[in-house]
């Protein structure tokens, strides 16, 4: 299972990198979304994948899952959700103002308005 997850995370990172290297702003934003998905899955995998036990540690508990990775991912998902929303709005506003979503044309020299 861990191996499968590792491949999945790798594919997500690969796709994210490809998308972020493209010129269109919207593709870049989708790329950042995939990148954070990959990071979250990696965090889940690194915490250890276990089945079939509640995250309760009793004195006689035979097995238990580690609840911490889930808590961390939840936090990280909320943050990346907020940032992606902000980024989308910013992209739309920038498109309105600058008239392009092509990163090549957003290069700009400093000091030029």
């Amino acid at each position, binding site marked *: 299972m861990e191996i499968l997850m590792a491949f999945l995370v790798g594919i997500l990172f690969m796709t994210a990198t490809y998308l972020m290297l493209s010129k269109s702003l919207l593709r870049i934003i989708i790329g950042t979304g995939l990148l954070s998905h990959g990071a979250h899955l990696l965090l889940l995998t690194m915490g250890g994948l276990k089945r079939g036990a509640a995250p309760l540690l009793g004195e006689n508990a035979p097995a238990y899952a580690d609840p*911490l990775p889930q808590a961390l991912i939840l936090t990280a998902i909320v943050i*990346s959700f907020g*940032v992606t929303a902000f*980024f989308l709005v*910013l992209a739309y*506003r*920038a498109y309105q103002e600058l008239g392009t979503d092509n990163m090549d044309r957003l290069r700009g020299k*400093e*000091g030029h*308005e």
Partner: protein
Amino acid sequence: MNNLIILPILIPLITGVILIFFTKNIPVQRWVSAAGFLLMIVAAGMLVSHVYQDGIQTMHLSNWEAPYGITLVSDMFSALLVLTTSIISFFVVLYSFKSIGEEREKFYYYPVVSFLIVGVNGAFTTGDIFNLFVFFEVMLMSSYVLLVLGGTKIQLRESIKYILVNIISSALFVIAVAYLYSVVGTLNMAHISLRLSEVSDLTIITVIAVLFLIVFGLKGAIFPLYFWLPGSYYAPPAPVMALFGALLTKVGVYSITRTYTLFFYHDTGYTHELLQIMAILTIIAGVIGAVAFTDIKKIVIYNIIVAVGVILFGVSVFTENSLAGSVFYIIHDMNIKAALFLLIGIVISITGTSDLNKIHGLIHRYPGVAWTFFIASAALAGIPPLSGFAGKLLIVRSGFEAEDYIGAAFVLMSSLLVLFSVMKIFIRGFWGAPRAYKNEENAPVKWLLFAPALLTAFAVLYGFGTEAIYPVISMAAETLANPEIYINAVLKE
């Protein structure tokens, strides 16, 4: 257990929340935020004196004992940085009253500054690696808003790049935490340090250390990763630039210092060597930029990068003296960068341009601005007895003692070129024949000068009072050099 620790985080948070309800009432916005920040200075000052008397202060949130819950830890280093942050943000807010413009004041400028300070103070205080990530995000989210607030074309364009870079570095941060967690199975920084000393396989630790260096290096602008900084910091108005330049990169530098002194001190052969090389290259790259540009904003922005290199060089030498030098220098640099950016803001509000070729002879009509700038630049370059001197002296001397001659020589030479780069502004911009500028009459120079003049006065006092401050600084350095002090304070209470 000391509840005082959380006040520098809580006060700006509450201030920000209150301010959201009164967005259109500018006097309320101004004075509530100023009062809140003043209160924060008091709280931070009390925190420093507590730490000085009783050693490291900790606070277990919700009373969960140390390795299980989130712990806030204030050692001398973080307490001093919190105090410096509070002072700078207070003065930047005062400066903003007449500089940032009513439009921005009505659209959440002060609340967002408050939230930014929540993030910065939180990042300095937290003792939990994932909580550090969360406070980083609080800080970054506020910085996105501050960067784009106003919505001019250059701001929108640069914000996109800034956000993209930071999203990538945040994802890398999560990945680094994931790897670290898989090795040590804990998030409490003291506990991580303890567990790492039991790990036998040092290669995986080195991988994690380098990953953390990349993550924090992106935020703190070290050599190959600083590419985004000159463009992004150029876009916003002067007070925001001062906040960014003084605080944001220093959070990255603080995190590198913290992780490299607390986590990765077992096998310093590869990691600290790498840090040292990157620090030296950072100094070189920053100096080249500072000397090359004739735009006053750019010159000071590249000086941020030089300072990051100098501080990290001190960290990479990793002796108690060099760490003391770094602590000295980081506080000096936060203070003086804020002062310089605010002074440059005055120059821009007088002349309406940041191009040095179009600015002449300001000293005739604004001697106060000119001489404050002169003292601030001398302090930046580290001319004794001003504030930059003691830190650089300690860093360079311990560099020579540790036989890192090349690095120490570069730090020394960089001071000379830093002095040249800021004196260039003084000679070409302030001297020469006076000329008239369009917006000159509207610039409220007297009010604006108040904040940077006081910050410069701090720099002078900090320099003259080196002897008096030294016990505090050496206490901070002692904790950094001996991680077991930190570990014991957090875990054995």
